[in-house]
Every structure is written in C-alpha cells, then in structure tokens.
C-alpha cells in the first residue's frame, strides 16, 4: 500500500480547520500563485493536463467542464456541490469538516480558471456541523483578503456564499441543485441547455463536487502532468473512497485509482466480519449496479468499472455480506428512490412506486417469477427516459440485482409463500385489470 496520499495527508492535524494552521502547511499558496502569477488559461491548462475527472458521480473531465464556459463578458458562476446525499457516500463530509480551507482554495482557483465572479457552496441541510465550520472558515478567508474584491491585488474578485439545503436527494443533481439554489423546488431541468451555457440565474455556471475542487490546489502544486502520473491513464489521481456496510473498519480511504477493489475492501476496510463472505457490493454508491464477489479483482477506476457494467460513481463502496437477503436490500433501495423521486418525470415517479409495490409482493410471497420479468422490464423503461438520472439510479442496481440473484429472488418468493399459504388465494391490493395489462405489455 504505497498509494500516495494527497487530500488526506495529515488531515487529523489539530486546528486544521483554522486558516493559521492551514497556511502554515502552505495553504493558499497555490491560490496566490494562480491569481498573481498565472493567467486563467494557464490554470485551465494545468487542470486539463492533470486529467482530473469529476469526483461527484459522472466522472466528466473537470478541466473540460470549465473550458465549456463561454468567454463572453457576462456574470459567471461557480457552484460547489456539497449536497452529498448518495447513500454510502461521506467523503466530502470529512473533507469539509477537517479542512474547509482546502475547499475554499480550490473554489478560488476553479473560479479564476472559469472567470466566475460569484460562487456558492450548496451544502445539504443535514450537515449542520460542517456548515458551521465552513461559515467560520469563510469569515477567516474574507478577513485575510482571500475572498471579496481585488483578491491579493490581482484584480480578481470573487464572492462566496454558503447555501444550506433542506433535505432532498434530488438537489445533488446539478440542475435540481440550481433550481433549489434559485429558491424553487429542486426539480431537474431539461438539458440542453447545459449549465455551462445557462445555469444559475440563466448565466454560465460550472458545478463541481467538493473533492474535485479540493484537488485543484494540489494539481497546481504538483503540476498537472505530474498529477496525471498517479492512477491509470484514463483515471488520473487519487480518489477518496467511502467504505461502509458489512466491513470491519468502515471509513474514508484515499486510494490511487486503479488499485484492485479487493485491496480496498479487505486490506483497508478489513473485509466482512469474521466468518462472513462478500455477497455483493456497490462500487459507487447505491446507484451503481451491484458487483459480486467474483468481481473483487477489478481495478478500481472509472473505465474498468464501466467495463464491468457498473460505475465508480461517487466512490462509495457498500459491502453486503452473505447473511443479508438480497430482497431486503433491494426493497430498502427502491423505497429510498421512491421517496426521493421529485415527481417531475412519469417513468421515474411511477416506476419507483411500482418497483416498491412489486418488491413488497416478492417479500410477502404474493409474487410469481413472472413478476421478476415485469420488474426487470420496468427498470428498462425507466433508464434514459427522464430528465435526470434519479430513476436510472434505482433501475440500474435493482435490474442488476434481479439479473444476478434471480434464483434467490425466486427462492424468496417460494419461501414467503410457504410461510403464508393463503397469500396466493387472496388477490393483492392491486386492480386485477392493471395486472393483466402489465403482463401483456
């Protein structure tokens, strides 16, 4: 385990959330260098050379995202997405709590490269402690002249406002976040136009995850090309991975992209409790299709996981051991997405609801194996048919669970029916005509 530590190096240092300690470690040096010695184009070139890909879920190259911002002389915005709600993800929380200035420095650098004059941190409302820490850090940075008008005499001005959300998973989706930041319900928008052209207040907007922005000072410090040497060719750098579920040492680990997944789950997180085996695991938050214990040797990077028909997502590994029935996990997951669906697009709103109903039937022994086919077809009809990927985020893992654990689903139905022998005689509380219609579809 010789993987380099960049973001988490010395993260537990006492007082790191204050500007003095952060500066004593060389903090804000890179913001100073960028603003006073480099042009925005030069900063952007370093980011492009680093090969940094977004750490929030989609994995889009961050430099390219900034380069899409038009050069026109209009108000531009940078929004930091700190609405970390993906089940299993808690890396940004630790970063913001322990080293908020790293994020602020990254925002200054990112905004300078994008030419943004106003920036916002959208933090989820549940992170009250972290929001207070950032508020205090913002005050310090303003007093030190690192935010506001004419920063460090460079002529560059930037305002930074911390915006607290109020509890909605959908606000982690970038356009839902923008609507929420504009004071509306957090409904995603139709794309295009993409936020780079028409985002916050209809202005060009770049939206980045906390971890992405916090990496930017380190890229400038190391140099883009040097940073690109870490990790694999297409997935450069290190990644914070949140490991949770049935493991002995859950927590955040910084890994070099491309290490075998087994190393993360077993060597770092200690693997499942003694006597248990990995049954399946989510490689990138609960939205990623599940992988089984046969996939543990897949290198942990964007492309290898995509090739295995899953995704790296937000880098949250949830390990489920062999004592847990797959149906209970699927039901939990589907209920979550049903609750969080904003209701704007029909396939997601209805698809999540019916998936929960069907999984409840499976759990209660009211289902037949045919229901599993219907369930799989519902998932297929959600994917790609909505404005945002919330529906897909349910459809992909549920679809993969049904495909990979179909025998267990069928056995679960049989066992539940045996426990409840009258279940089959009593029609479920669903209109019989509707069931016929669905079967014919």
């Amino acid at each position, binding site marked *: 385990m010789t993987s380099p530590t960049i973001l988490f190096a010395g993260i537990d240092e006492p007082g790191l959330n204050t500007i003095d300690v952060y500066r004593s470690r060389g903090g804000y040096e890179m913001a100073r260098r960028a603003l006073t010695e480099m042009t925005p184009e030069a900063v952007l070139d370093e980011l492009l050379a680093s090969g940094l890909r977004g750490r929030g879920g989609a994995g889009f190259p961050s430099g390219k995202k900034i380069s899409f911002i038009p050069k026109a002389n209009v108000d531009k915005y940078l929004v930091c997405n700190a609405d970390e709600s993906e089940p299993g*993800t808690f890396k940004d*929380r630790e970063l913001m709590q322990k080293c908020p200035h790293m994020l602020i420095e990254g925002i200054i650098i990112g905004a300078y490269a994008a030419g943004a004059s106003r920036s916002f941190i959208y933090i989820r409302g549940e992170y009250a402690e972290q929001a*207070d820490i950032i508020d205090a850090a913002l005050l310090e940075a303003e007093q030190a002249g690192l935010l506001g008008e004419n920063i460090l005499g460079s002529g560059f001005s930037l305002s930074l406002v911390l915006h607290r959300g109020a*509890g909605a998973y959908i606000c982690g989706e970038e356009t839902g976040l923008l609507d929420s930041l504009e004071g509306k319900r957090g409904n995603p928008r139709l794309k295009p136009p993409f936020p780079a052209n028409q985002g916050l207040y209809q202005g060009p907007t770049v939206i980045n995850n906390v971890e992405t922005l916090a990496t930017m000072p380190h890229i400038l410090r190391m140099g883009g090309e040097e940073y690109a040497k870490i990790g694999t060719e297409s997935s450069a750098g290190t990644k914070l991975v949140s490991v949770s579920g049935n493991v002995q040492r859950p927590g955040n680990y910084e890994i070099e992209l491309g290490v075998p997944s087994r190393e993360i789950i077993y060597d770092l997180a200690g693997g499942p409790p003694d006597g248990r085996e990995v049954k399946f695991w989510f490689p990138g938050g609960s939205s990623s299709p599940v992988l089984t214990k046969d996939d543990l040797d897949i290198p942990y990077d964007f492309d290898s996981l995509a090739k295995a028909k899953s995704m790296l997502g937000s880098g949250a590994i949830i390990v489920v051991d062999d004592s847990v029935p797959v149906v209970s996990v699927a039901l939990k997951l589907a209920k979550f997405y049903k609750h969080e669906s904003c209701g704007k697009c029909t396939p997601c709103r209805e698809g999540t609801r019916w998936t929960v109903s069907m999984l409840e039937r499976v759990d209660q022994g009211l289902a037949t194996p045919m229901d599993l086919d219907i369930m799989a077809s519902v998932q297929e009809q959600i994917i790609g048919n909505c404005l945002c990927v919330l529906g897909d985020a349910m459809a992909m893992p549920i679809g993969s669970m049904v495909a990979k654990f179909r025998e267990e689903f069928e056995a679960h139905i049989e066992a539940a029916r045996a426990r409840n022998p009258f279940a089959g005689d009593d029609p479920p509380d669903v209109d019989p005509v509707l069931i016929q219609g669905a079967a014919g579809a």
Partner: protein
Amino acid sequence: MIGRKKRNRAPDAPDQAEAAAGADAVGGTTAAITVQRRGQPAPVAPQREVTRFGHGSRVPGWDDAVDLDRDPAQIPDPATTPVPAPLRTEIEAHMAKYPDFHSATIPALAAAQRHHGWCSPEAIWQAACVMRLTPGYLISVASFYDMLETRPVGRHAVYVCTNISCSLCGADELYDRLKQETAADPDVNVRGFECLGACDIAPMASVDGVYVGPITLDEVPKLVEQIREGLPPLPGKQLRLRKSTDPGAARTTTGTADPGIARATAGAADPVSPTRTHGTPMGGGPVGPPAAIEQPPAPPEEDE
C-alpha cells in the same frame, strides 16, 4: 391549513358507504372479465375492501385543504402581518446575500421554522410578508424538502439514518427502539431519515444537528434522557471526535516536499471543536437566533 393537508393524505378508514361503493366498482370490472353462464345467477363479486382517501377516491389528489371557492392568498400586507424583528432581520440578511432574492427562500423558511417550531401558516405568512412572495409559493417549496416541517413537531429533531449502510448495521432496530422510548414524549421528533452521510458510524442518528454513532441499543435510554434534557448527546461518540481511518492520514504526500504536512501527528486530538453549541439546525429549537459561529465554545467534553 398546511397542517391539515398532510394529515388528510393518510388513507382514512373507509366507512360503510365508501366500502359499498368500492365493492360496486370492483364488481363492475370483475363482471367484465368473467364468462357468465346462461340461466345461472350472476356470481356474487367477492367483497373487497378498498382503501380510500378522505375525499372518497383511491388516489391522493384534491383534498379539503384546497378550498376552491376561496381566492388565492395574496402577498401578505405588512400592516396586518406583524413579523418579529429578529426574524425579519434574519430573512433580510439572507436576501441580501444573493443576486436574486428568491434564492433566500430555503434559508428564510428555515429561519421561520426555527422561530415557530414548524412551517406553520403563521410562519409562512410572515416569511412571505418579508420576502414579498405569495404564501403559495413558499408552501410549494416547504412541502418539497424533508427538513422543513409542514406539521407541528417536537422541539428536538432526531433523525435516524435508515438507509442501506446503516440498516446493514442495525439501524432499523435502533429506530424502533428510539421511537418506542420517545412515544409518549411530544417534545421529541424521531424520524427515520434517508442517508445522512455518516455510514462510517452506522447505526447513527442526528440529534438536533449533532451526529452521533455508532449507537448500541443499550445506549438508547441514556441518549433519550440527554435529548430530553437538552444535553450534548453521547459526548464520547460524536462524529467530530472521530479520527480518519485512512492510514495515509498520518503520512506526507508524494508530491513536492511540503514541510508543513509532515508535521501532522498521528494521535491528533479533537480537531478544534466547531464552536457550535448544542441546538437545532432547523428543527423548532429554542426561539432565538440560530446557533451562530460567534457563540461561546461548547464546554469541554470527555474524549473517547
């Protein structure tokens, strides 16, 4: 008004007339797909109880909170809508932060909720009066977000994470136990919540904004006692005391030498405590300004 809306959404027990109507409806569809033999009496449709909403339909929809005869609420008149000065100041401060004042909607509602305990009609009307928006707009926003309460709730907001990672570690049992222990206490609002982003301390709960975990079932009575008294919840188990699990956290980087980073000590103490006193972030805490950063530091707490 808002309070009633949510309650009415829960399916009411069907009364006799409604149950009969339901049987008719089902009978109709059954007859359509049953082959009826000539000369035999029509089969009696099985009696099925259909769950109905208060307004008689099987789908939620219009309910009696919507008064179609009434004019839509206009922007409240400042002359007839008194707003407490601290609330007005706070909302106006939020509005000044953004290029478009609409952005202050969520902070304003959160502030109103802190003052009133929940987003009561009074709270909504006051926020609408200060922001010069219609109450309807604010209600549409308040009903979207989980942390904005559209019903009266207890002062202490206790969110128990019941998502995948936590439930793998026993969160459902924890939630049931907490719910049981606080069932008779109207002051405590225990809610099962979606992933709170603290799966490393599963099973966990957010007590008035303070994350604690992992919570064992034995600790529940003690925790409930602390919640009731308004004391810091399980001081030794709060998230902010937790060290990083990453073995690299004590190491220096591979990049260019950064002398400062090497100074990091492995056995670091409590990272300078966020100087946040124990208080609700959004829930109806004690009336007053929000727990702000300039409040005196919390009393020292026992370390793990």
